[in-house]
C-alpha cells in the first residue's frame, strides 16, 4: 500500500528495510546517530537533517558515528565492503569529497577492474548536494559530473520519494560502489511510496512529461524546475517532453536519444557549472548520435562558471530557474535556420 512520504522519509525507510533484511548492511558517518559519547540522548540528531533518525534504536551497533575524518571512514566503508559488509557511508556534503576522493576514485572504483574481476565493492556513499539554501560555496555544489567521469562508480540522483526509496535499495544491493546524491532542497518533496520493499534498476531514465515540441533533458532538482517551465509553456502551446536522467552512470542513452529524435529540439538543464558537465555530455551524445534529427542547436541551461555565492540575490541568479528554462525552450522552439 502506498502512502505519502517525503524523500527524507523514503530514504529512512529504504535504509530501515534493508538493514532489517540484511545484517551485513551498516550505516556510518558523521552524526548519523548523533550523540555518541555525549551525556545527552543517543540518536539526538539521526544525521544532520534527521535522515537516519530512529535507526540507532533498531540496529544499535550497526549505526556508527564517525570522527570528522572522511578519508578514514569512507575508506573504512570501502574496506568493509571488500570484506563482506554492505556499508552505507554518509558523506555529509558532497563538497567534502575533496578530503576523501582517493578512497572513492582510486580505491573503491578500481578494485573490480584492477584486480581482474576478482573483487566486489558493494559500498554506497550517500551525499547531499545542490544550491538554494544559502549554504555558500563549500556546501552547495553539484559535483556529480566529477564522479560520473570515473569508470567503476555508479551515480544516482533521485528526485521523487518513490525513486529515492527504490534507487537506494538498488544501490545497497548493488555489488559496485554507488554514489547516491540527495538534493538538500528536495528532502521535503512529497510523493506516493509503497510500503513494501522494491528496487529500481539503474540506467533507466524517466520520461516525466510527454510532449512533441521540445525535449528538456534534466536531472536532480532541475527536473522539478523543468516541469514547472513545461507547465507554463503548455499554456503557450509548446509541448515539452521532460526527461529525468535518474542515474548519470550508467546513463540511459537510448531514452535521451529517442526523445531528441522525437522532438528534434533539445534543452539540457543542469544545476552544475557548464564545463565538462552532464549538460555538455548529454549535448555531445545527441550531437553524435541524433544529429540528423536536430532542427535547432542544442541549448544548455546551467549555472555559470563560478563558485556558488551566498547572498540570496546572487544565489537565485546562479541556479537555473523555470523562467530561464522556459526562455531557452522558446528560443529553441522558435529556431529557424
Amino acid at each position: 500500500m502506498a502512502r505519502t512520504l517525503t524523500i527524507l522519509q523514503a530514504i529512512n525507510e529504504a535504509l530501515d528495510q534493508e538493514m532489517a533484511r540484511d545484517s551485513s548492511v551498516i550505516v556510518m558517518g558523521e552524526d548519523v546517530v548523533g550523540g555518541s559519547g555525549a551525556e545527552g540522548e543517543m540518536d539526538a540528531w539521526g544525521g544532520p537533517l534527521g535522515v537516519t533518525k530512529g535507526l540507532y534504536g533498531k540496529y544499535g551497533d550497526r549505526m556508527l558515528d564517525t570522527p570528522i575524518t572522511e578519508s578514514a571512514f569512507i575508506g573504512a566503508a570501502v574496506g568493509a565492503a571488500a570484506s563482506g559488509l554492505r556499508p552505507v557511508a554518509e558523506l555529509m556534503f558532497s563538497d567534502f569529497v575533496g578530503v576523501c576522493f582517493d578512497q572513492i576514485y582510486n580505491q573503491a572504483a578500481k578494485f573490480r577492474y584492477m584486480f581482474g574481476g576478482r573483487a566486489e565493492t558493494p559500498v554506497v556513499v550517500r551525499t547531499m548536494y545542490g544550491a538554494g539554501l544559502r549554504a555558500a560555496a563549500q556546501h552547495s555544489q553539484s559535483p556529480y559530473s566529477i564522479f560520473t567521469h570515473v569508470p567503476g562508480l555508479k551515480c544516482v540522483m533521485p528526485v521523487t520519494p518513490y525513486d529515492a526509496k527504490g534507487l537506494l535499495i538498488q544501490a545497497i544491493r548493488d555489488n559496485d560502489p554507488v554514489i547516491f546524491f540527495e538534493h538538500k532542497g528536495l528532502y521535503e518533496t512529497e510523493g506516493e511510496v509503497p510500503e513494501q520493499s522494491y528496487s529500481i534498476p539503474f540506467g533507466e531514465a524517466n520520461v516525466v512529461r510527454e510532449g512533441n515540441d521540445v525535449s528538456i533533458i534534466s536531472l536532480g532538482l532541475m527536473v522539478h524546475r523543468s516541469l514547472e517551465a513545461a507547465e507554463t509553456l503548455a499554456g503557450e502551446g509548446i509541448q515539452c517532453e521532460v526527461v529525468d536522467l535518474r542515474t548519470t552512470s550508467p546513463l540511459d542513452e537510448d531514452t535521451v536519444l529517442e526523445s531528441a529524435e522525437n522532438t528534434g529540439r533539445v534543452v539540457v538543464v543542469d544545476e552544475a557549472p557548464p564545463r565538462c558537465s552532464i549538460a555538455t555530455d548529454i549535448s555531445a551524445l545527441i550531437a553524435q548520435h541524433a544529429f540528423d534529427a536536430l532542427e535547432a542547436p542544442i541549448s544548455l541551461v546551467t549555472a555559470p562558471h563560478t563558485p556558488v555565492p551566498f547572498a540570496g540575490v546572487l544565489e537565485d541568479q546562479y541556479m537555473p530557474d523555470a523562467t530561464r528554462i522556459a526562455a531557452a525552450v522558446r528560443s529553441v522552439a522558435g529556431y529557424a535556420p
Partner: protein
Amino acid sequence: MALTKDDLLKAYRLMRTIREFEERVHVEFAAGEIEGFVHLYAGEEACAVGVMLHLTKADRIASTHRGHGHCIAKGVDVPAMMAEIYGRATGSCRGKGGSMHIADLDAGMMGANGIVGGGPPLICGAALAAKVQGTRQVGVAFIGDGASNQGTTFESMNLATVWGLPAIFVAENNGYAEATAADYHIGASSLADRAEGFGMPAATVDGHDFFAVHQAADEAIRRARAGGGPSFIECQVNRYYGHYEGDAQTYRPPGEAEAARANHDCLDMFAGRVTKSAGIEREELDDIDRAVAALIDGSVSSAKADPAPAAADYLTDVYVDY
C-alpha cells in the same frame, strides 16, 4: 607464540622466496623483460614474514607500492604474481593490475597500493567487518615511513582507536620516502611516540630481526583478537634496492645497502640463529634454497610463456563500457 621447527622452516622458506623473487625481478627488469614501475622488497623480508606467520587466510592485510613481499608472505600464488608482473592473462589480476596492484582477496590480501597511505582506511574497514561479524579476524595495514606522515594514516589510527578495531599498523621504516630521508621527513622523535598519542600500544623493533618482529606482532595480534583494539609496530629496516627499479639512489651514502646486506641481513641472521640453537641443519635450509630457486625459475619461465590477456578484455570487469 612458541615457534616450532616447522614454523621456523616456513618462515625461512617465505623469506627466501621473497628474496629470490625480488632478486630475479631485479634481473629481469634490468634485461628489459618487465614493463612499468617495480618496487622491490629485498632486505625487508623479516617484517612481512614476522607478522604474517601469525595470520590465517581469513585475516586481511593492505599493502604498499612495495608489496611483493607482503603478497608472498600472505600466501598469494607465486607463479600468478610473477605472471601479473609480466602482464599475463594468468596473473593474479589477469594482467590488469601489475606489480603495484597485486591482490588476492581470497588470500586476505587487499592489494598492493599505488597510493601512499591508501591502505590504512581500508584495513579499518576490514577490521570493522571482523568486529561487526563477530569473527576473531584482524586487519594489518602495512605502511612505509612515507605513508607514516599521510593524513589517511593518522585518521585511520584515530578511527581504529575510537572504534576499538582489531587493526595493526605496521610501519616499515626503510629510511627513505622515495628519495627523502626519514630523518628529514618525519617530524617526531619516533613513530611509536606518535602512535601512543593516538592511544594505542606501540613497539619499535629491528625489522631485520625476524624474531623481534614476530614477538611484537604476537603481542599486537593477540591483543586485537582478544578485543583489545589496535596496535602499532615500527620496523626499522633497510631496502637493498632503490625506491623503484632504475633508481640510481644517489641520495644514499655509498655502500649503505651493501653494508646492510653484508652485516645485518635478515636471512643470514635467521639462519645463524636457527642453526645454532633450534636444531636446524644448514642442509635443511640449503634444500629450501634449491626448492625456492626452482619455484622462481619455473614462475619466470611460465610467466614468459603465458598468454597476454585477450585484447578485448580491456573492456571487461567494469560495469559499463561506453
